[in-house]
C-alpha cells in the first residue's frame, strides 16, 4: 500500500520547496517546519515500504516513458531502501536541528527551500531505476550543494567555495556523463529486443547485458562512472572541493557533505557493482583509489585547526573506506556491497552527529578555530557527550557502529590481500584507521577538554538542537551490533533480485572464483583494528588531553617540512586553482580570444577593408563632372559607329 505512494517520497519535499520558496518569508522560522514534516513523511513512507518489502524480500519497480528511448522510474530494492531510510531519517534530524541553528538568519526561508529541494533530489537519486535519472538527480544534488555552500553568498569565500565545489564535481560529472553515453552506445549496438516497459538504461537491462558488452568497453565505462563517483564522493584527486565546502552553514555540511550527497558516489559504485565486477581491473581501481584516499585525507585531518575541516577530511577519508570496501569486492563478491553500504549508513549517522555537534559548539563559541576553544565540556555537557559518542564510533571503539562497519572493511581488505589481489588497500586502511582515531580524539580533546583558551560565549544549545544530537548519538553507538549480520545479508544479496550471475561476470572480469575458499584470517588480524583504534585514542589523549604526557611540539615543529606540506594540503590549491584553472585553462581562453579577434575577425575586417579600399580607388574615376561622362559617352558612341560602319563594309573585326 505504501509503495503506491513511493513517488511522494520525492514529491513531498519538492512541494515543501515550492511552498517555502514562495510563502516561507511570511511564515515563522521561514517555513522550516514544512520541510521537516515533508522529510519526516518521507521517512514514514520509506519505513512503510520497508515493512512491506522486507519480509518477502521483494522489490518495488514503477516506470514510465520519458522521451526518446529514456524512461523515468522508481526502483526500491534493498540497496535503495536502506539509503531511503537513512536519508529521510538523517535529513529529518538535521532539518529539525536547523530550525534552531538557523534561527534569526534572514535567509531562513531560502535555506529551508533549498534544503527541501536537496532532500527531494537526493531521494530521487536513490530510488532511480535507470542510470540517466540517477545522473539527473546527481546533478540536482550538486546544484543544491552549490546553492547551500554559497548560502551566505555575501561572503566572497563562500561564493568562491560554492563555485569550486560545483566545478570540481562537474569534472567528475563530465566523466559520469561520458560513461553513460559510452554505456548507452554499447547497449544500442547490441540491438536488444526489449520487453514491454523496459528501457536501455534501466539497471535491470544493464545488468542483463553485461555479458554481451566487450570487456574493454566495460572497463572504460567503469572508469568513467567511477570518475563521477570520485568527484561526488571527494576521492583523490577530486577531493579538493569538500574541505572548502565547509563555508556553508554547518547543517549543510552535516547533511550534504557528510551524510548524504557525498555518499552518492559510493552508492553509484554499489549500484553499478555488477558492472565494476565484470570490468577487468574495474574494482581494483576503486580499491586503490579508495584506500589511498582514506590514508591521504587522514594525514591532512591530523594538522587542521578548523574543527569543520578536520571533520571534512575525516569524511573524505571515511568515503575512501567505503570505496575501498566496494573495491575489495573483487575478492569478496557482492558481499562487499553489504559491508561498504553498512559503513555508509553508519557513517552517515555518526558523521552527521559530529558535524551537528561541531555546529552546536560553533553556534555557542562563535569560532571554528579549535585553538580558541578548550574546556567546552563544562558548559555544554550534552553536546560534549554526544560528540564523544560520535568520536568513539568514528575511531572504531569496540561495539560501536563504526567498529563493526569499518573493521569489517579492514578485514575484507586483508582477505583481498590474502587472496592475491594486492596488499596495499589493507596497508592503507589499517594506517588510516590509526590516524582516524588520533585526529578524532585530538579534535575532541582540543575542543572539550583542558582549559578555555579564549573568552568565548558559554551556553548550551536549545533542545531543538540537542534532541537530534541525542537521537543520532544513540544510533551511532548502538545501531551496529543488532543489525550488522542482517544488513550484510539483506543488502549483499541485492543483485539476486536481478538475476545477476557473479560467477559468469567474474570470468569476464578475470577474477578468481573461490567462494568456498574464504580465507580464514588469523586472530591478530581480527583484533588489530581494535588495538589500533584504542591505541589511537590513547595517543591522542597523551598529546592533547588533561592527562597530557607529551607536547605536540616534540614530534613536529613550525619548520617541519612534512607538517608544512600537510598544512598546505599537499599544495593542491596551488596546483588546481592557481596553476591549472588560472594559468592553463584561462590561458587557453585568452589565446582563443586573441585568435578570434586578430585572425578570424581580423580576416573579416581585412576583407572589408580591402573592398572599401578598392572601391575607394575605383571611385576616383567617378569625377562627378557630367561633361567627363558625356565625353566618354560620345567617344564610345563614335567608336561603336565606326565599328558598325566597318562591319557593314565587310571588314572582319
Amino acid at each position: 500500500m505504501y509503495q503506491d505512494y513511493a513517488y511522494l517520497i520525492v514529491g513531498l519535499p519538492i512541494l515543501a520547496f515550492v511552498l517555502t520558496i514562495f510563502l516561507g518569508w511570511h511564515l515563522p522560522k521561514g517555513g522550516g517546519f514544512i520541510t521537516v514534516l515533508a522529510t519526516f513523511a518521507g521517512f514514514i513512507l520509506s519505513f512503510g515500504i520497508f515493512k512491506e518489502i522486507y519480509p518477502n524480500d521483494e522489490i518495488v519497480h514503477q516506470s514510465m516513458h520519458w522521451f526518446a528511448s529514456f524512461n523515468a522510474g522508481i526502483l526500491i530494492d534493498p540497496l535503495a531502501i536502506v539509503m531511503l531510510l537513512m536519508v529521510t531519517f538523517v535529513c529529518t534530524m538535521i532539518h529539525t536541528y536547523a530550525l534552531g541553528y538557523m534561527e534569526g538568519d534572514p535567509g531562513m526561508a531560502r535555506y529551508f527551500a533549498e534544503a527541501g529541494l536537496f532532500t527531494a533530489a537526493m531521494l530521487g537519486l536513490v530510488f532511480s531505476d535507470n542510470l540517466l535519472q540517477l545522473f539527473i538527480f546527481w546533478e540536482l544534488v550538486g546544484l543544491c550543494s552549490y546553492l547551500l555552500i554559497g548560502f551566505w553568498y555575501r561572503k566572497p569565500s563562500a561564493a568562491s567555495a560554492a563555485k569550486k565545489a560545483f566545478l570540481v564535481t562537474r569534472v567528475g560529472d563530465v566523466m559520469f556523463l561520458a560513461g553513460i553515453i559510452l554505456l548507452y552506445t554499447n547497449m544500442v549496438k547490441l540491438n536488444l529486443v526489449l520487453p514491454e516497459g523496459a528501457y536501455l538504461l534501466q539497471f535491470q537491462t544493464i545488468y542483463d547485458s553485461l555479458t554481451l558488452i566487450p570487456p574493454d568497453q566495460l572497463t572504460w565505462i567503469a572508469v568513467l562512472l567511477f570518475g563521477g563517483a570520485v568527484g561526488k564522493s571527494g576521492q583523490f584527486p577530486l577531493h579538493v572541493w569538500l574541505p572548502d565546502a565547509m563555508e556553508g552553514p554547518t547543517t549543510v555540511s552535516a547533511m550534504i557533505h557528510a551524510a548524504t550527497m557525498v555518499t552518492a558516489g559510493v552508492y553509484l559504485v554499489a549500484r553499478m557493482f555488477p558492472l565494476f565486477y565484470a570490468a577487468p581491473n574495474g574494482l581494483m581501481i576503486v580499491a586503490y583509489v579508495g584506500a589511498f584516499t582514506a590514508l591521504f585525507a587522514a594525514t591532512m585531518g591530523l594538522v587542521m585547526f578548523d574543527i569543520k575541516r578536520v571533520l571534512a577530511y575525516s569524511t573524505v577519508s571515511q568515503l575512501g573506506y567505503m570505496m575501498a570496501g566496494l573495491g575489495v569486492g573483487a575478492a569478496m563478491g557482492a558481499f562487499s556491497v553489504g559491508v561498504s553500504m553498512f559503513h555508509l549508513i553508519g557513517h552517515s549517522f555518526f558523521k552527521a552527529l559530529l558535524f551537528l555537534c561541531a555546529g552546536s559548539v560553533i553556534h555557542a563559541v562563535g569560532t571554528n578555530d579549535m585553538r580558541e576553544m578548550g574546556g567546552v565540556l563544562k558548559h555544554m555537557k550534552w553536546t560534549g557527550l554526544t560528540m564523544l559518542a560520535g568520536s568513539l564510533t568514528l575511531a572504531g571503539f569496540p561495539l560501536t557502529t563504526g567498529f563493526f562497519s569499518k573493521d569489517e572493511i579492514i578485514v575484507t581488505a586483508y582477505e583481498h590481500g590474502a587472496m592475491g589481489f594486492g596488499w596495499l588497500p589493507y596497508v592503507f586502511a589499517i594506517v588510516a584507521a590509526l590516524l582516524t582515531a588520533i585526529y578524532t580524539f585530538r579534535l575532541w580533546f582540543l575542543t572539550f577538554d583542558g582549559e578555555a583558551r579564549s573568552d568565548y560565549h558559554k551556553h548550551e544549545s536549545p533542545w531543538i538542537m540537542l534532541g537530534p544530537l541525542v537521537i543520532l548519538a544513540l544510533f551511532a553507538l548502538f545501531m551496529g551490533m543488532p543489525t550488522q549480520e542482517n544488513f550484510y545479508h539483506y543488502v549483499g544479496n541485492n543483485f539476486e533480485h536481478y538475476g545477476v550471475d557473479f560467477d559468469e561476470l567474474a570470468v569476464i572480469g578475470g577474477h578468481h572464483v573461490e567462494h568456498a575458499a574464504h580465507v580464514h584470517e588469523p586472530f591478530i588480524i581480527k583484533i588489530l583494528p581494535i588495538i589500533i583504534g584504542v591505541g589511537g585514542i590513547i595517543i591522542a589523549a597523551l598529546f592533547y588531553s588533561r592527562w597530557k604526557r607529551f607536547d605536540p611540539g616534540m614530534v613536529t615543529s613550525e619548520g617541519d617540512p612534512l607538517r608544512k606540506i600537510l598544512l598546505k594540503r599537499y599544495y593542491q590549491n596551488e596546483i588546481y586553482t592557481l596553476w591549472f584553472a588560472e594559468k592553463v585553462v584561462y590561458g587557453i581562453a585568452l589565446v582563443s580570444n586573441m585568435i578570434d579577434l586578430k585572425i578570424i575577425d581580423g580576416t573579416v575586417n581585412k576583407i572589408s577593408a580591402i573592398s572599401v579600399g578598392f572601391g575607394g580607388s575605383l571611385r576616383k574615376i567617378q569625377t562627378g563632372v557630367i561633361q567627363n561622362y558625356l565625353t566618354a559617352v560620345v567617344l564610345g558612341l563614335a567608336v561603336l559607329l565606326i565599328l558598325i560602319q566597318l562591319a557593314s563594309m565587310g571588314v572582319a573585326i
Partner: protein
Amino acid sequence: MVPLVLYVLLASAMFTIGLYGLLTQRNGIKLMMCVEILLNSANINLVAFSAYLPNANGQVFALFSIALAAAEAGVGFAILIVLYRLYGTIDLDNINALRW
C-alpha cells in the same frame, strides 16, 4: 521643296555644335544654351521628317519637345540663379560640394 538631306545636315551640324559646346564649356548658361541647340536640332529633324512623311506625329512631338525645353530651361535657369547666389559663380568646376 528643299531636299530632306539639307534638313538632316542642318540638324547634324546643330547637334554637333551643341554637343561640342556641352563637352567643352564650363559656364552654366552656355551649357543651357548648348542643350537648347541639341533639342532644337532634334526638333528640326522631327518636323522635317514629319513633312516628308505625310504624318503629323513628328510635329506633335516637336511641340511637346519645345514645351518641355521651356520647362527645362525654367528649372535649369532657376538652379543656376540659386547657384550664383550661393557661390557667386556659375562656373560648374567650382560647384563640387557633393563630389567624392
